[in-house]
């Protein structure tokens, strides 16, 4: 049982590793949420060059392995005389990658809004900007929660790729501790796996609470029933 003792002794280091994992997830998550939404608006908008830019970005990034994006960022950017810390390079790589998937998630949310509503909004003369900001996005916001939860869960797991790029996140701590004491291999592996499951549980709980909070059919918010099916169907397994 000395393996478990080893894990207990090194608990601070392991927690530090998970703190880095959480930091990577949150910072890359916020950045890619902003950039991905922007990109999605570009992709559904009427200006062709911006549409091409969005489509091109998504096509290129979605078909490139994340590990390769990390190589671009951690080893490539210094060649272009960009000097960040390794954690910052990791955040850049994760943001670049996740932005493409946030864009697709937001786009599927926009597409799930009933076509009749959009037509009605246009029929009363709203321009593109107001169709989007007053009619589509408020509804898309709710439809977008399930797919984006999937994207952010993938991001949480993807932070583990940073293990090979000099970032002391959970898996690198695991590697280091396992190197110093091989008898603790299984306790370390199981502890790390457990840590990820706790983080994923927090993420899904947060998403569930958010979805409930914006549910129009809850707590006396019963105006005219708003048809909002189709949001859940777009969730998919990510």
């Amino acid at each position, binding site marked *: 049982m000395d393996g478990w003792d080893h894990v207990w002794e090194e608990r601070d280091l392991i927690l530090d590793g998970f703190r880095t994992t959480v930091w990577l997830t949150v910072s890359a998550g916020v950045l890619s949420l902003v950039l991905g939404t922007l990109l999605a608006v570009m992709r559904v*908008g*009427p*200006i*062709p*060059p911006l549409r091409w*830019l969005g489509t091109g970005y998504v*096509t*290129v990034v979605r*078909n*490139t*392995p*994340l*590990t*390769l994006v990390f*190589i*671009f960022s951690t*080893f490539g950017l210094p*060649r*272009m*005389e960009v000097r960040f810390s390794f954690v910052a390079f990791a955040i850049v790589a994760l943001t670049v990658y*996740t932005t493409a*998937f946030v864009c*697709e998630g937001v786009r*599927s949310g*926009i*597409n*799930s*809004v009933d*076509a009749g509503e*959009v037509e009605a909004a*246009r029929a009363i003369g709203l321009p*593109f900007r107001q*169709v*989007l900001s007053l009619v*589509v996005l408020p509804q898309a916001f709710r439809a977008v929660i399930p*797919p984006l939860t*999937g994207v952010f869960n993938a991001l949480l*797991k*993807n932070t*583990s*790729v940073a293990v090979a790029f000099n970032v002391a996140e959970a*898996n690198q701590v*695991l*590697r280091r501790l*396992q190197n110093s004491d*091989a008898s603790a*291999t*299984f306790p370390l*592996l199981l502890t790390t*796996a457990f840590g*990820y*499951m706790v983080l*994923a549980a927090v993420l899904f709980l947060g998403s569930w609470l958010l979805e409930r909070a914006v549910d129009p059919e809850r707590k006396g918010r019963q105006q005219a029933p708003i048809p909002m099916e*189709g949001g859940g*169907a*777009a*969730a*998919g*397994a*990510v």
Partner: protein
Amino acid sequence: MAVVLFDEPGPRGRRRILVGSVLAVVLVLVPLVGFVVWRLEQTGQFRAAYWEPFGGAGVQRILLRGLGATLRAAGLALVLALVLGVVLGVAQRAHVRPVRWLATGFVGLFRAIPLVLLIFFAFLGIPRITGNALEPFTALVVGLTLYNGSVFAEIFRAGIRAVPAGQVEAALSIGLTRGAVTRLVQLPQAVRTMLPTLVSQMVVLLKDSALGFIVAYPELLRSGRRIYTNVGNVIPTAMVIAAIYIVINLALTGIATWLERRLRTGRRSRARTGLDAPPVAADGGLSQI
């Protein structure tokens, strides 16, 4: 499929879109692309010494061998994961409760753990049990199989669930056995609806095989590393390898689209069964993450 968010523009609208396009090109596209290209040029990423090696037979052989190793790992993992996925998918629908729970738990567990950690489980854990060091290839294939097998199981389950329950009831009532219902009624229709998801998961699998980089399996990225540590051309090498991945993945996606269209329209089967295939692109390729 897309909601049309704006009207077919009239003459004034077309003029405004033209102005917007010009502004977008001048203010966004050119500065953005120009800045990146300028940085690349300033730091000498386009110098011939960085690009010429790719014309040489030696470097090409390294890349080809790396590509071969990538395809070998991804191919084997794909076959094993499909088998595992079918087994788990069947077990998840089993009538014996403990079997069902076990399969569901297995699928949930392996989808929650990062693939990197699964590869470590194989790479570090298996030698602790067997006493022999594990080949990086085996560790990579085991990790990919466990993860993608679980994802495939979910895809199969969702595909079978999408077949209307009335068809199963009808098939049972004309005397087919449960096995025959699955084989003759549910699967043929499910395959059609789950094909797009299945292929985009194959793209994921191929991309994830790049994690072999972490356990020093000599796949495409590792081969690239061999090149750029010698020549010092990180960015050109990464660009070439990215291009290889993008071409292969786009080809895979293209095949899937073609197959899907063939299956949908080729044999007027849709009209006969009246089964509306679900909007396959609803998740917009989200599952490729």
